């Protein structure tokens, strides 16, 4: 399987470990990965701030970059950014050529956990992490991309890992892209409630599939001096792997899981 890595600007700028872990997991399961270097950003920071016109060329650039390699799939480590790729055809309405290209991308794009679970059909990725952890569900991944199963299914099979439910799991962490910078007073109250909920679980690790949410919650934990380890799901699935533990989704028993 040929997979184009949709690295996202946040991972490019801030979180090399997340990108590395994702690539290593995909390659472990037989994917050939490509990283088009002209890619930058899906366009959310400016688009969601109202600069729709100024975002057109950002979207054009990303579309051209991700199509520059003839691959079967595009996979990204951020539910929100992946959803933006899915929305690009709608945002590029009125530009038929780009809209068609964007549609071609949208049709083959997956968020990391859903690609592993639903496309590769992996249930146990062979990882081990001896910890008590909780999971932050990102809003865009859950409600827009509609993916709320894959991460939990995969985490359930990590050896040594105990998952504790996060109270108010449906609530936003207060990131919201530029919202976190433009409305710091509101965003602070939201992320504080999220940090409090995380602490209330007594988990030592916070896991998510959206690095930006983790940057927000983790950054607030750090400012408040709350001790916690922050991990992207890819880092968990890449932790102490023993491939003899690998198991697959049973297509018969788990109807509707595989694409």
């Amino acid at each position, binding site marked *: *399987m040929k997979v184009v890595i949709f*690295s996202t*600007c946040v*991972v*490019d*700028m*801030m*979180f*090399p*470990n997340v*990108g*590395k872990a994702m690539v290593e997991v995909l*390659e*472990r*399961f*037989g994917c050939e*990965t490509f*990283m088009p270097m*002209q890619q930058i950003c899906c*366009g959310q920071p*400016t688009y*969601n*701030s*109202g*600069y*729709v*016109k*100024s975002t057109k*060329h*950002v979207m054009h650039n990303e579309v051209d*970059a991700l199509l520059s390699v003839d691959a079967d799939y595009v996979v990204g480590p951020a539910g929100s950014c992946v959803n933006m790729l899915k929305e690009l055809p709608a945002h590029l309405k009125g530009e038929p050529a780009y809209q068609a290209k964007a549609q071609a991308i949208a049709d083959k794009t997956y968020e990391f956990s859903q690609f592993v679970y639903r496309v590769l*059909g992996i249930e146990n990725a062979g990882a081990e992490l001896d910890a008590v952890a909780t999971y932050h569900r990102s*809003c865009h991944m859950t*409600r*827009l991309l509609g993916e709320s199963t894959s991460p939990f299914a995969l985490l359930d099979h990590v050896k040594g890992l105990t998952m504790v439910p996060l109270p108010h799991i449906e*609530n*936003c962490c207060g990131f919201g892209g*530029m919202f*976190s910078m*433009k409305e*710091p*007073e*509101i*965003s602070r109250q*939201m992320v504080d*409630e999220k940090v409090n909920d995380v602490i209330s679980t007594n988990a030592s690790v916070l896991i998510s599939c959206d690095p930006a949410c983790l*940057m*927000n919650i*983790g*950054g607030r934990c*750090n*400012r408040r001096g709350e*001790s*916690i*380890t922050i*991990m992207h799901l890819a880092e968990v699935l890449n932790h102490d792997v023993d*491939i003899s533990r*690998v198991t697959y989704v049973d297509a018969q028993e788990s109807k509707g899981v*595989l*694409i």
Partner: protein
Amino acid sequence: MKTGSMIRSSDHDFLTRVKESEEDTFAQKAVAKAQDAQWIKREGARRELGNWEDWRKLGEQIRQHTVRYLPDYLEEFSDNVESNGGHVFFAQTDIEARDFITNLAREKQVKHVVKSKSMVTTEIGIDEALLEIPGMELLETDLAEFILQQDDWDQPTHLVFPALHKNRDQVREVFMEKLGYEGDNDPQHLARFARKVMRKRFLENEMSITGCNFAVADNGMINLDTNEGNADLCMAIPKIQVVCMGMERIVPGMREAETIDNMLARSAVGQKITTYCTFTSRQVDGESDGPEEFYVVIIDNGRSNALGTDFEPILQCIRCASCLNVCPVYRHIGGHGYGSIYPGPVGSILSPVLQGNYDDFAELPYACSLCTACTSTCPVKIPLHKLLLKHREIEMDDIHQSKLIDDVVMRVVGLGTGHSSLFRTALGLDHLAMAPLARKGPEAAKNLYSDDKHVEWMPFVFGGWTKVRDLPDPPAHSKNFRSWFKTHKPADVDPKIAKHTAQREQEIQAERKA
């Protein structure tokens, strides 16, 4: 008074309001508690009904269809009200509606008016206008509105629970001070006391003003949903009833009203149907109570600004307030923070539309983290977060309503994220540029900060980030993801795994062909 001026509920600026809301810890806790309780009730009621997504499609269709053929339905409705012996008045502005009702009260020499909860009457400022009539006594009869009125017309902060921000002690104090209440702070005792006070007043009133959940086009009735039954007393006892309705609050027939009533109750309060669901019109021959004179005031007041634009779906709204009940921003800034009588996601969209500009409500579309909880809960499928984005687009792209420096910064972000050579340069330089700002750990949040370094202060709009939380110090160029990718070598794939992946690939190909 200027048209649309009653929509504003505060003279304080946005940041002040946010701060005030945070300081009101009771109100903030009350909202969070209400949201959590409603989450359980609402989702439970929807689950019990079953097929919720299909119900939403039906709700959306009914409301979209009605808005699409609004002039036809309003025409049909007004014809039917007249043939039932009632009267319909059309008001393009709040001032017209206000003048009509106050003139009617003067003409009929009305001195006692009872009201049942209605946002549109707040929107047109009818209370203040009526109270200018010498000797006029006005009574809000919804318990929450009654409390707000007794508290010198405090502003509502929620569409369904207007007095959510008040606790039992505050209510008790108001009742003691204004009404001579002598009991304790038990909500049951407070409510029973209010019942007694209001019952007496109900019996002496001559005119009622009610809202309208839905007007029924094909028989000229209006449909009202309440739990207290106050609206029904308002519609039984006085000889004159004035119904105020936003012009979009209409459905084709009783069947559609019934469908929406069911969805409204489940979405608003987690009930199957509100305690009282009433269809009503002018008294018919032989009946001894109910209004002999029945007036319906159909109000535009800026609603038509939405028609024919991207904002048209906001007119689908059935005022269930479930978007408020799931909104994390509303959770923290409450109704007061929005500075509009219409708070929450729906209010952030509707308030500028009703006013036709962004003069008073420029910040509201930005008071949103785009978490989209509102869009997913809306029973009539209004794409709320997309409409908020649309406001932002108009504010930034069309009218450049931004603080100058932030605007330039955002345009630079747009430039930087759109040109790969610029971005690559930035990727190479960000570590160097931020190096002077970076602070060395030890970090409480582990595995987040490369080289154990974080940034505590940033310039421009980015300062909003570091005001609240630390930022990772960007990795040096040689350590970033791209540099690693260029040099990394894929490990050998286990043959069994490779076989499975190849098999999956074949399955998917086969599926696609089929």
